């Protein structure tokens, strides 16, 4: 032990992590990220408002040929939209409404916007979550199998299939699935979603199968390929080699040593894909007549229903921001180096 007395330096080189201030550091970090998310959302609101309300005359666009004849309706619309006011005051009014939870009134049917979109927002979120629950384990599983057989035949076959699936547009996948499972070959699942008034699509679970399956097939290839690429890199690392030389069985090496370090890029690509699904799967929703956000957005644009378009755009933007925030938090929690950097 005299040796220790003369050689203390390498032991004191790294300060031990400080545990006490960890909670406070996390709170500050989270507050900053939430603040940033709000700033982003506010910037989005400006873009959305400018793009929808300030370009051209909405009243003329709504009334079309009636603009010159139906004076009463025109005046009523102008009053409702506040066309006479300046852009800034209209924006402030609108933003004030958003903050207090008032999304405005639909121009098409004069009903409150929120009442009309709440069910489609829920429907879309349920669809995406179901797709995510199926897709995440599937994509990671395929990636693990593929990287286990790296550059041998099973890997080549899997990668070729994934690439082909990634290349097929999602509505083509949908049509093929309908032909295969609903109309031509087998007749197992309904091809369209029929929702009773006041009901939800999942009242008839069978009708959810095809939309979910289509989304899963659309997204799995991307996630799987990214995770496989990261896994291959990790499997070449020194710590995986050491784990093998330590006598750890291969499945444990894959699950505990490799996957844990390959999961973060996977989370990032999953979050991007989910956010994309939440907002943009118009074609799939239309194909299956699924009452979701995408379909409603397209209808609203067609009807020049400015208030609806604004509300839906803000909700989609909000979903993007929340999903990315969750992904960032998860990534940091799963990367010890980043995690300890925050808490010390």
């Amino acid at each position, binding site marked *: *032990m005299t*040796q*220790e007395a*003369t*050689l203390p*330096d*390498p*032991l004191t*080189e*790294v300060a*031990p*992590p400080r545990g006490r201030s960890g909670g406070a550091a996390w709170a500050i970090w989270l507050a900053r990220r939430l603040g940033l998310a709000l700033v982003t959302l506010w910037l989005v609101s400006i873009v959305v408002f400018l793009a929808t309300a300030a370009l051209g005359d909405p009243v003329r666009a709504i009334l079309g040929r009636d603009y010159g004849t139906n004076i009463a309706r025109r005046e009523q619309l102008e009053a409702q939209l506040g066309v006479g006011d300046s852009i800034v005051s209209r924006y402030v009014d609108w933003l004030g409404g958003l903050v207090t939870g008032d999304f405005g009134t639909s121009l098409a049917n004069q009903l409150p916007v929120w009442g009309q979109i709440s069910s489609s927002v829920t429907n879309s979120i349920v669809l995406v979550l179901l797709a995510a629950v199926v897709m995440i384990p599937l994509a990671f599983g395929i990636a693990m199998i593929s990287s286990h057989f790296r550059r041998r035949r099973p890997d080549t076959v899997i990668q070729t299939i994934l690439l082909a699936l990634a290349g097929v547009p999602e509505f083509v996948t949908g049509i093929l699935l309908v032909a295969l499972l609903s109309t031509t070959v087998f007749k197992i699942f309904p091809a369209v979603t029929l929702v009773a008034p006041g009901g939800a699509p999942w009242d008839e679970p069978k009708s959810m199968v095809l939309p979910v399956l289509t989304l899963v097939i659309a997204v799995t290839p991307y996630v799987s390929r990214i995770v496989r690429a990261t896994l291959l890199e990790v499997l070449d*690392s*020194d*710590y995986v*080699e*050491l*784990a*093998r*030389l*330590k*006598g*750890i*069985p291969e499945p*444990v090496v894959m699950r*505990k*040593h490799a996957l*844990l*370090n390959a999961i973060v890029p996977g989370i990032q690509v999953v979050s991007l894909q989910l956010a994309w699904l939440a907002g943009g799967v118009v074609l799939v929703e239309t194909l299956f007549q699924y009452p979701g956000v995408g379909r409603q957005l397209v209808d609203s644009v067609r009807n020049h229903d400015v208030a609806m378009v604004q509300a839906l755009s803000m909700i989609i933007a909000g979903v993007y921001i929340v999903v990315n925030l969750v992904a960032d938090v998860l990534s940091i929690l*799963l*990367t*010890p*180096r980043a995690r*300890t950097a925050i808490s010390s």
Partner: protein
Amino acid sequence: MTTTTSGTGHEVRKTGGLVIEDLGVSLTGTGVDVVDDIDLVLRPGEVVGLVGESGSGKTTVGTSLLNYSRAGAHISSGKVLLEDRDVLELPWKEVRKLRGEEIAYVPQDPASALNPSIRIGKQLVELHQLRGIGTAQSRMQAARDGLAEVGLPTDDEFLGRYAHQLSGGQVQRVALAMAFLPKPKVLVLDEPTTGLDVTTQKMVLDTMAELCRAHGVSALYVTHDLAVVANIADRVAVMYAGQIAELGPRDAIFANPSHPYTRALLDSIPHLSQARALKGIPGRTPSPGRRPEGCRFNDRCAFAVDRCREEVPALRTIAPEHEVRCHRAGEIGTWDINIGTVPDADPDRPRDVILSVEGLDVFYGRKHVVHDVSFDLAKGEVVALVGESGSGKTTISRSIGGLHKDWTGTLTFEGRQLATSARKRSAEDRRRMQYIFQNPYLSLNPRLTIAQIIRRPMELFGLAKGKDANDRVVDLMGQVALGPQMLHYQASRLSGGERQRVAIARALAAEPDVMICDEITSALDVSVQGSIVELLEGLRIERGISMLFVTHNLALVRSIAARVQILQAGRVVEAGSVVTVMDTPQEDYTRKLLGNSPRID
């Protein structure tokens, strides 16, 4: 597995140890041998050093003992006998059980060999947990005992840390503790101290030797540095191009090295007691499939005759236990450790100061890392900055080079004061001071050809262009001993030593007056280090270039530098001419560094 209880098997089991017979590893597909004809015995409690340059196949032999080969290669022949079992013939399940429990492996770069996402406590007990050995409590206790044995803290806080929260020495000792935890009979250590400073290296080596003695473990210590082996090994095997070139007891190898390759390796090691004209070994280690006919060393050997090119030499015994694979062993005279010694740099030489540093304080944010450092550098002089990792030597050199700008103090270059960051300095000042980085694998742009890399500074500083620049590139390549055929290679085709030569040529292309060399040989083999030092010494004499040489290797300082600054925790503790400081050290810290340096003289 069948457990025969025949007399010999029983005897070997009682004594432990490991026998390697005629081991060969080949590339999958082509069948080209990576290593072949390896016969080696590890006796119980014995440490055998396996020494060779990069590409000699020493790591391949090391992992073969665990029936493991990297992707693209497979073990093609031979036996690895542990007790009465052939490790290479065991069923897969048995091999896995044997790994870790009976033959353990200590990795080369522990910082990357510990899993970054698993707490070290969990990594330590992982194997036992999977095998269901003991209870959770007894496993934890074993982990704590293991850590205590290697001199690390044993509290929960330490067990709960991740690898990135430990220093380099701590990580390596965790890896040692992990290897020793299942009480293995044989240990394979793959360059476990490369990249560690001398103090930490000494500590790790002492710990390892202590554990081997205490537990009667036989160890195979794989390294490129004969000096390290001189201090710990009982026997030494020197490997070249996939074969054992010389094998013998340590004292025989160092007193009477009989293979020209062993001698060349010894000649490239700097001494602590006297400056030497270091020499590399000409040429490079041939890769598998490109090895010459006859003796594999014949194209780099100073003693080669026709017979060496035609006939493959066999290992033959020249003294008890001392075997050499050379036709001319015994004909080539004796080796003298003092060959190549030169007078130390004259401490009283008149100095013409070109660069001076006064009262340098460096900060990382609010952290004050370098305190009041002052020294100067004369024309055609090499000044060494020496210290353990974390002593601030690289920080100082980065501040002087203008790569780190958060510092205060005065930096005077030929009487003019320089700005803190390189961006604020004039192009002329930037040209005249060039920086060479530690890791040549990271400092060269992988997309550019060697010619483009070397041309770049000429174009940047307007020194030459067009055909003139091309001529200069060829000329510079010649100066750093690289052939013109490499002009259009990308860096990935070059070995570490060749890459570092390109980095030096790139610095020379700017025609500098001062070169800052930041640990430029620490990532390289000792033999390659010898040739790089030879090159730098030539440049200093011919061109009068001054150099700031950052290193943790005091023996190297003796051979290359005239003056030295010994650093500890960001302060200069001792400074002066190399002869004075190393022959009559005044500070305990300097003596400790000298004492910890591995040496063969």
